[in-house]
């Protein structure tokens, strides 16, 4: 036990008096007399139901919440009437600035996430797997890819979970959104795990270098640093990987999987981008810190591109291991790797970090590799 309540009610005379009062029928309705202005809430669009944006009025609106939340140290929802002064126990939230966590449009991301949930167990047409014959080498390659994806997806539950309980309860929309992210990513780890085990192979080899990148994400010093690494950089790259994986999927079953995971991933990328934008707009002094962090994060990220993953993507892209297949697979993989980097820079531009394009070591690495291939 880390906390003992301030009162032991077994031996408290005030408490005994209160029980006596209750038994006598004396109820205290002082709270009922202290009324507040009423609000009128209506659904703006019945198809959407009652959206968070419909409830953004008066004291309940984030717009009316200060940049630094000082008065709420407990778990009160934004807009509740707070107990005065020291009466409210301190539950120790550490993320109390809006800029620590907030992102433009986070409320609509929450509603979108609620509405676009899906179920691995029933929404992937597992029953169709027997309709298709997949060559063993292609199945092995797909399982190697599933092993990597199953490995990396849970970082996107662990990182948000690590910070969520530190967030002030006034930022309920962000806490809610990243809870949806946790379950989205659990679902992704689930779908890749189940698929690897479903068709006669199993899980293959984990990635040492990839794990170092994951450790870099998990051990970020702040939520914002973790978010920019995870949401913008990491999930942005994985989103492009999902797009490629849909393209090189052996059958419509895997294609369906990637269509569904792609949607979730894009939502997380959008939140990360909007958090970074909000941060850059409202806390520009943090720019050098974020840039310094990204300099290292981008180095970490290349750990995700390990030889096992590269080879398995090539086999999938070419649909086999013959020289012709390998040649075709290399063309496919080369095309998407360039896209990953370009899309990342576009997002960084949009978030207000255009300097990443000049500062990032990613382009230099790409050029070095192209040079090495051409030289040989």
């Amino acid at each position: 036990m880390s906390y003992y309540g301030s009162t032991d009610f077994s031996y408290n005379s005030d408490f005994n008096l209160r029980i006596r009062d209750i038994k006598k029928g004396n109820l205290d309705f002082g709270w009922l007399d202290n009324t507040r202005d009423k609000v009128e809430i209506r659904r703006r669009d019945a198809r959407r139901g009652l959206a968070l944006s419909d409830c953004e009025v008066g004291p309940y609106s984030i717009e009316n919440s200060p940049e630094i939340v000082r008065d709420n140290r407990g778990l009160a929802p934004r807009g509740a009437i707070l107990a005065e002064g020291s009466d409210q126990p301190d539950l120790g939230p550490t993320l109390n600035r809006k800029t620590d966590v907030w992102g433009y449009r986070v409320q609509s991301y929450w509603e979108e996430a609620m509405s676009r949930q899906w179920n691995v167990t029933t929404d992937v047409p597992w029953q169709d797997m027997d309709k298709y014959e997949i060559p063993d080498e292609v199945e092995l390659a797909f399982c190697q890819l599933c092993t990597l994806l199953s490995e990396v997806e849970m970082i996107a539950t662990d990182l948000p979970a690590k910070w969520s309980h530190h967030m002030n309860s006034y930022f309920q929309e962000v806490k809610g959104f990243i809870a949806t992210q946790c379950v989205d990513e659990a679902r992704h780890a689930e779908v890749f795990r189940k698929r690897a085990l479903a068709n006669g192979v199993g899980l293959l080899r984990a990635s040492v270098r990839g794990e170092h990148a994951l450790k870099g994400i998990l051990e970020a010093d702040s939520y914002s640093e973790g978010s920019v690494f995870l949401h913008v950089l990491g999930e942005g790259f994985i989103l492009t990987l999902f797009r490629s994986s849909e393209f090189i999927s052996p059958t419509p079953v895997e294609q369906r999987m990637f269509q569904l995971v792609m949607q979730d991933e894009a939502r997380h990328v959008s939140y990360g981008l909007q958090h970074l934008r909000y941060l850059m707009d409202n806390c520009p002094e943090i720019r050098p810190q974020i840039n310094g962090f990204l300099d290292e994060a981008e180095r970490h990220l290349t750990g995700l591109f390990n030889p096992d993953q590269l080879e398995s993507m090539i086999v999938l892209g070419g649909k086999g291991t013959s020289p012709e297949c390998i040649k075709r697979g290399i063309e496919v993989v080369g095309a998407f790797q360039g896209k990953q980097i370009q899309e990342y820079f576009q997002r960084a531009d949009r978030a207000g970090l255009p300097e990443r394009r000049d500062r990032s070591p990613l382009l230099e690495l790409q050029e070095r590799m192209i040079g090495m291939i051409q030289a040989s």
Partner: protein
Amino acid sequence: MAIKFPSVEFFQELARRMEAKSAEFEKLGFCDTVMGVRVEGDTSHLYALTFDVFECSNVREISHAGDVELDFTLAAPRALWREMFESIQKHGQPEPGYTLNSLSHVGDRMEVVYDDPEGHDKFYRFMATLQAFVDLASDLEIEWV
């Protein structure tokens, strides 16, 4: 009766079918985006499709991308659109190389045009809905013009 492609009526018919299959689309979730469809040829056409909650609520032909705030535009030659729809009609769903994602990803046979990366990401955020939308043409009688 055959419906011409490309035409506003073609996409309006898909929108009507979307509404008729509302339960299926409600399960896929909200879809809020304005998608451009550019059909390139001797005479090019650009359509703006507004997706609102569970419906495609508006289909217009526009002269320039700037006329409407499009989140992203899928641009491809008329022949490629035809190949895609014929693949959908043949199998009830596209063959692996003919999904919207595949066509727009490797080889860039279909181009995704956008100004804002957030608008671009909407293409992926609502991918299952948009794919299901074009799949509604699976049993549509089409007159290719």
